[in-house]
């Protein structure tokens, strides 16, 4: 394993990019909800897991990966809407501790729900036929599906960018992150915008779940490591910031991938340390969404 | 005894404090006025240590505290009240004053003796309450006190530190005329050797209490002088009253 070997490097780079794409799908929702509503949702990883399992069910029902990729995230968005109506409205005014602990409780609920409904054994969703094969990259065979994930990540990034810049909802969101008081003073229905953003974030978490399923296996507990990685991305990139989430995902995706192969003993310690250092030096992240006053 | 020399402070490209100097001899009553946005609050924060000046010096007696934190400055004898009531609202009056007394007597770090056994602390708290006329409210939770009374306790807490310098940030803000009178009486009755700096919006209060007044405008000292001099200044009248009226 020589980092200077171009083939090895290229393969690991693609792996890193693929992880970054997944992390981006996961973190952007959490990040915007954190930045916009000041709400830390620890159950975000659980949404990812439920997305993957709903995808599994959809694949079994319709025998189509693409149906799963569309339906499961919609299901998660719906779940998010219910969650928003029942809990989030109520929690928004509460202390961060309460938010963290309520969503912490939900992790256990989600965990056992999955065990009850889908069982505790690891399962997988096969990659769709189009991407089931391999392609040759620098003389090495590489699973085509992973390239699809990278493409999906980039596509979502671009869509969100244009959505944020060109749509009315995007304008409200940008203004809301900058100065929430001002926006509500303007009489814009901020709550509705928050609701839409929250559901979109849930949708993307579900999307990440289905997208990840053919690569990683599904099992109750898959949400735990993902949640912490996602939180790191959010903190490192800067809560509420699109480019922050993108940069954070890229950094953590690469650091984790190369770290695991190059310094397996220290890699995970290093990314937590990175999060701690960023929190201390730049609590608003590398690319802060809000003008820090 | 309390002085600031050539303070500068900028937020980005915005100069909010420009070359401000103040010199308060022991026991003086000094007022600080200026139109909104003149930089009064910034200057106040530079003096208390909430903000650090870009350049210039702040000295308490002969100690340079320019780089010191608010708590260090407080321990060196700088007491302050806040513009908005900033108390321990869920604690009683006694508990509030006990806190100040614990810190003043340098025993707050004691983690092994029961608080009740610190007789001098309890006495100081009771004296403090008596000074404020709150002796009957010792066991009242602060948030149940009237606004004006909370305002007095605001100053009482600062006084409980036995400061050398007392900085009052709009002590009469939000008060009714009667409450303002009570507050004026409280300030007028402060120990003569205490150095007092008052920021105040209510001009009558400043003119009555202060011996010298500094007028700030756009972060600069526009003028410093006795109340008569300030009152008589055409420039102040134009800037201060003209621009607002």
């Amino acid at each position, binding site marked *: 394993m020589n980092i200077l070997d171009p083939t090895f490097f290229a393969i690991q780079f693609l792996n890193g990019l693929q992880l970054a794409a997944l992390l981006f799908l996961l973190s952007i929702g959490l990040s915007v909800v954190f930045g916009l509503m000041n709400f*830390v949702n620890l159950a975000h990883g659980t949404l990812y897991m439920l997305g993957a399992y709903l995808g599994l069910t959809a694949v079994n029902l319709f025998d189509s990966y693409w149906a799963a990729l569309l339906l499961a995230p919609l299901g998660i968005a719906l779940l998010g809407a219910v969650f928003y109506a029942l*809990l989030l409205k109520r929690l928004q005014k509460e*202390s*961060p*501790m*309460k938010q*963290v*602990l309520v969503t*912490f*409780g939900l*992790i*256990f*609920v*989600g*965990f*056992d729900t999955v*065990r*009850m409904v889908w069982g505790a054994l690891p399962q997988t969703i096969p990659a769709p036929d189009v991407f089931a094969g391999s392609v040759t990259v620098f003389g090495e065979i590489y699973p085509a599906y992973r390239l699809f994930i990278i493409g999906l990540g980039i596509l979502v990034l671009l869509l969100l960018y244009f959505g944020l810049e060109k749509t009315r909802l995007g304008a409200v969101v940008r203004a809301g992150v900058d100065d929430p008081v001002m926006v509500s003073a303007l009489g814009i229905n901020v709550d509705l915008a928050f609701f839409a953003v929250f559901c979109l974030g849930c949708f993307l978490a579900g999307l990440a779940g289905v997208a990840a399923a053919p690569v990683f296996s599904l099992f109750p507990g898959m949400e735990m490591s993902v949640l*912490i990685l996602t*939180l790191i991305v959010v*903190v490192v990139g800067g809560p509420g910031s699109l480019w922050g989430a993108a940069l954070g995902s890229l950094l953590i995706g690469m650091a984790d991938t190369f770290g695991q192969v190059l310094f397996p*003993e220290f890699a995970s*310690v290093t990314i*937590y*340390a990175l*999060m*701690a250092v960023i*929190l*201390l030096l730049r*609590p608003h992240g590398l690319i802060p969404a809000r003008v820090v006053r | 005894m309390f002085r600031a020399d050539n303070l500068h402070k900028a937020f980005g490209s915005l100069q909010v404090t420009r070359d401000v100097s103040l010199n308060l001899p022991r026991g003086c009553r000094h007022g600080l006025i200026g139109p909104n946005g003149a930089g009064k609050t910034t200057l106040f924060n530079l003096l208390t240590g909430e903000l650090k000046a870009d350049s210039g010096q702040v000295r308490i007696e002969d100690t340079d505290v320019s780089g010191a*934190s608010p*708590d*260090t400055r*407080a*321990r060196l004898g700088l007491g302050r009240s*806040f513009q908005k009531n*900033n*108390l*321990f*609202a*869920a*604690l009683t009056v006694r*508990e509030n004053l*006990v*806190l100040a007394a614990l*810190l003043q007597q340098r*025993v*707050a*770090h*004691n*983690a*092994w*003796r*029961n*608080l*009740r056994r610190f007789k001098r602390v309890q006495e100081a708290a009771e004296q403090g309450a008596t000074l404020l006329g709150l002796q009957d409210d010792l066991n009242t*939770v602060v948030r149940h006190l009237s606004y004006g009374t909370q305002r007095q306790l605001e100053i009482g*807490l*600062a006084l409980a*530190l036995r400061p050398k310098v007392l900085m009052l940030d709009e002590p009469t803000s939000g008060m009714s005329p009667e409450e303002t009178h009570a507050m004026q009486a409280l300030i007028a009755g402060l120990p003569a050797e205490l150095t007092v700096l008052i920021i105040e919006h209510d001009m009558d209060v400043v003119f009555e209490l202060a011996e010298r007044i500094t007028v700030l405008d756009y972060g600069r000292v526009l003028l410093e002088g006795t109340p008569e001099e300030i009152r008589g200044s055409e420039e102040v009248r134009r800037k201060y009253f003209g621009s607002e009226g």
Partner: protein
Amino acid sequence: MIRDPLHTPLALALTLLALAVWWNADFFGHELLAEVAIFAIFAMSLDLMVGYAGMVSLGHAAFLAVGAYATAAMTVFLGWPASLAMLVAVVLSAGAAALVGLFAVRLSGVFFIMITLAIGQMFYAYFFKSRPFGGDNGMSGITRPDLGILGLDANDPVVFSAMMLLAALGVYLLLRVIVRSPFGHTLIAIHQNENRLRALGCPVQRYKLAVYVIAGTLGGLAGSLTAQHTGFISPDLAFWTVSGEVLIMVIVGGMGSLLGAASGAALVILMRHELSDENTWQLLGLPGVMSHYWQFVMGIFFVLVVLFAADGLYGRLTGLLMAARARLTPNRQREDGNVSR
């Protein structure tokens, strides 16, 4: 200073209850009692930080792990007696807490939660990968103190559970002294209004660091005891969900009350124990298979407690008692509820 009418009766009741349970317990009863006592220590240590000083940590399990791993390393690798290992483990936990605290106390609110979570997970990741400490398998063969000099055997569950109860009592008394001291009073003030306290000349960060170190040290003690209790350690001790659970224990019982935290630990551990037992469900007329899904029930319980009883059982009881008292003596203008809020 402390408005706490429940304190003495509850302290007595808990002591009597613990004694009664200890007297009547079978083998498993003693094991459970020891676990409750250890987690009572752990929860009380966190309560000093969360309930009194208002510093909500989601990484307290790091110190549980440091205490446990240090004890394991010294008894297994070096063959030291458990009592000496425990002492060193506590000192090491204090050191670790001082080091972590130096950074963590610079932040507050949600950022403090995040940094403690990150640092806690750092410890987890380290232990998980560390070859000398057995990686994700952990270590076993940790010994208990030699009580031969007293004619007792610490491996006897009866003796060990009594030791743990005494340890919990000791920690409670120590923390009680702290919360009733000027320092304790200042901690409550930090929770309430940090900024004003600073203006009164209090070096708030140093106080926060002190609290962090005290909590971490006692957390390390709980870790050392848990290693001695189970004879086995694994990285899971440091996992962030352990930190979350102990935070829930503190809240269930009532933040800002040591007895509340201890009772919360007992309640959560007993619930976990009972809910994962088929017999409990069958007694309730429900299928025993529900015992596999005890986390579901616990999760819902956590959510409900945080949403609807965030002042905890202790806070609720105190509140009721205060209200009753206020009705009897109308001139007392005292506050309902808990000290720290």
